[in-house]
């Protein structure tokens, strides 16, 4: 049985959690006082971001072939990392998708920076990250809901760069999402343009899918300011 959510998503809505943006900016509750000046900038940039975002998403479901060494999706996408395979479990299908908020937020953040409005620029950039994460989360949740209705089970999304799934996998994953149809492209280093875009894989199976530990724990960016 297929999930049946192939193609473009039309009803995605950006949701901006201010506390999540603050976390991205390195806010540590115990020690940093959140001053009203900062809070005011955050609120202002949230409003600006809401004007600028152009949410879009697209995704397709593919059959999966699991062997002892790797999980294969289509001809080119092979996942061989032990941790990622363990996390996915023995899935039978996968939903591959791409979401973006467009480039206006990052362009505006850069512009603010050039104007000497560093605080606003950095805050808007973090809000952009939160916004695109919220889109990916909506796709994930919608998929899980649908899977539940069909008596299937859908796992937590993972993206290249998580755990031992190398970022290079983007080159093989991206074409399968058909992300270019919603204005995303891939540069030669495997980075998505616009930057505020996400591609991801969600495992689908008749039984329970692997549960995810803290996303940050297994990330290679040990020095990341957003790390939990």
């Amino acid at each position, binding site marked *: 049985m297929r999930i049946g959510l192939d193609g473009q998503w039309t009803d995605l809505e950006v949701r901006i959690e201010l506390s999540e943006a*603050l976390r991205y900016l390195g806010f540590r509750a115990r020690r940093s006082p*959140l001053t*009203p000046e900062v809070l005011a900038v955050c609120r202002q940039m949230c409003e600006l971001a809401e004007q600028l975002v152009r949410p879009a998403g697209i995704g397709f479901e593919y059959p999966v072939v699991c062997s002892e060494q790797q999980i294969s999706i289509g001809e080119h996408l092979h996942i061989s990392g032990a941790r990622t395979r363990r996390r996915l479990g023995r899935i039978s299908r996968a939903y591959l998708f791409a979401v973006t908020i467009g480039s206006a937020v990052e362009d505006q953040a850069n512009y603010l920076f050039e104007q*000497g409005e*560093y605080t606003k620029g950095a805050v808007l950039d973090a809000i952009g990250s939160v916004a695109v994460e919220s889109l990916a989360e909506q796709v994930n949740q919608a998929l899980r809901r649908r899977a539940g209705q069909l008596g299937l089970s859908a796992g937590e999304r993972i993206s290249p760069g998580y755990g031992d799934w190398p970022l290079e996998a983007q080159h093989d994953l991206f074409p399968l999402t058909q992300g270019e149809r919603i204005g995303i492209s891939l540069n030669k280093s495997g*980075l998505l343009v616009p*930057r505020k875009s996400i591609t991801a894989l969600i495992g689908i199976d008749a039984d329970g899918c692997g549960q995810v530990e803290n996303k940050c724990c297994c990330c290679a960016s040990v020095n990341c300011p957003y790390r939990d």
Partner: protein
Amino acid sequence: MNTSSLAAELGRGLILIDGAMGTMLQALGLSVKECPETWNISRPELVKSVHRSYLEAGAQIIETNTFGANQYKLAQFGLADEVEALNWHGVQLARQAIGEAGRDGSAWVAGVIGPLGELLEPYGSLPLQNAYAAFRRQAQSLVEAGADLLYIQTMSDLAEARQAVLAARGLGVPVWCSLSFEAAGRTLTGATPEAAVISLTAAGASVVGANCSLGPQELVPIIERMVSLGLAPVLAEPNAGLPRLVEGKTVFPADPAEFAAGLAKLHASGAAVVGGCCGTTPDHLKAAAHLRGAPVALHPRPQGVLYLASRTEHVAIGANQPVRIIGERINPTGRKKLAADIASGAMVEVAREARRQAEAGAELLDLNVGVAGIDQVAAITQAVPAVERVTGLPLVLDSDTPEVLQAGVSVYQGKALLNSVTAKKESLVQLLPIAKAYGAAVIGLTITEQGIPQTAEERLAAAETIVRTAQEYGLDPGEVIIDCLTLTVGADQQAARETLKAIRLIKQELAVPCVLGISNISHGLPNRVPLNDAFLAMAIANGLDAAIVNPLTDSTRATFVAANLLAGRDQGAARYLAAFGGPEAPSQAPQKEAEPADNRQLLAKHVVTGDREGIALVVEKLLAGGMDPLQLVTEVLTPALEVVGQKYELGEYFLPNLLLSAEAAQKAFAVIKAHFPADERVVLGRALIATVEGDIHDIGKNIVKVILENHGFSMLDLGKDVPVEKIVEVAAAEQVDLVLLSALMTTTLPAMAKTVRRLREVVPQIPVLVGGAVVTAEYAREIGADGYGKDAVAGVQEAKRLLKQVRGLRE
């Protein structure tokens, strides 16, 4: 159950409470990944055996194995629905152990409640009411299972502890509460021992104390400070010394004899209940068994003193205390900008006023959101946290609407003063229950059903009514401060005399502290400040304990200092000398508002607080005054930026604060540059910065660039996704002093390595500094970079170090 015998026991002498449960269970095989409370059901005999051994060692109170049995902690193990069962079994095991030991009636069960493991708003995401509900659920389970008292412990956030106490009271058993302190004498979230005792006893705790974190020695000063307030018996449960890491394991060093000697010291410091926390065993407790029943020194609550506390700090008002300054400026009456700020919900001006008054020397802040036509309930719930975020000063919540006061006190995370009740029945009936429910004190205005009484005697009668009724509602006289009312002297020239007389009378007859709003005295008259100050001095002479004033007025602050000394309320003239004794005494020239002593300090302050407004003007003034631009940079701007950097590294500031300061500093530099376009002396060195080939992330790089610019580097920014050869070419052509490279993704690290390699080949004399989310110090070494910065602030230090090295080599 046998709560009254416990109270009697507390009166008889020192009580011995048991030692560690968690570390004991671990010794019996509990894994650190396991939920300890499940052993109440799966390994009941082992849990009971721990209770038994503590009873045998002499414990009079044993603590249930329910520390983490709240819905949030249990949810981490998928056991959120087991709150009732695990608490019930926890109490049963303790109760059975007492029965089996034949100690019914001489030993009691303390139902233990620990932290929820989530941080409360506004710092964390857990709403106050959710925390309250979770604590309530656990407390009810424990009491229904038969706990003799509830013992909330190991709290590191006073706000959370306060919610726990509020939730635990009213269930028919005493509520005890102890916090865990760090060696510097504050909890993790910054509360002092005094603030803890004041806030928690007001909320309803009957015993307060300190447990965990520290050994007995380190707890002594904390316990002394708690005892000295005289508000409640004090409990101490230290760890078995300060934990050390030995071969990867936590080891508690104090042996039983050493630990018992420590408990004896704590007893000597005034602790009424002692026991042990992490690392202690029945042997530790047994060694201290001789302390049981030892007489405990009594510290009665001082009469005529009112204590208030914020989430972190406290203040005492009344007998033998200096007369306290209550800042009046957060009041929108007649102030358009502030009113608009409150109406919009932004609270930026509110916070600014709070900070300015705190810096000027206010000791409490009055908070009034009385803008006509707005939802004041909503406004005060926004204003209270806004002020709490910028200052630890206790708050005086000011409104004539009980609903507004209730809304304010319900979100306040300390013991507030409510401004105000009157002697009118309706007011007392409405407000006193609110004060009692949330653990707040009240200002009582001497207004009766007939209005403001003319004579001092009538005002005394009104004050008596307030104090007596407050007692009927369960509020100690120490929770009331009386306002004898300042009437306009322009309208009635006898008015001031009657007010002053009322202060004397009320202090004499009722022994409660008095407060006045000062400025109304001069209403309608010219040259108001001298009149206000004179009235303030006279009121202090008549026994006033606190005054609501504008603390930004220099002469008013000076009046406080001088009158405190003359009234015998300044021990050793310490406050007077601190204010006027030093070489930096404020000038006698009349200033309208408090300002840092000179423009240099003001400039530094603008940078540190990230205040862009007005900074250009201060720089202009300094330059016009003949200050050398280089001196301005090295003596004022750079040190201020270093303070900002330190705050960032300590976690006091996060990125937006750092950038606000950077923006302010850049404004200052821009002014200098406009005046001295050719002055190159302020440039430390020239650096090239780029995000490596293939990488399109540049916010991080841009931040580093700005921070380095502020520290005197002239930056050449090549942008993002910069080809290796371009970086090498420009570095060689421009002969920069330093190259900085950024990479954010694992896929672009090879490009960084390649760039460093090529730079080495072509321009080996130029040092390279690298950074970015995935770059580590190890990787930096591996690819041959000269330096590594984990963030912008660390990057500056590293850049300065490399620059020095290069210069050293060249010279």
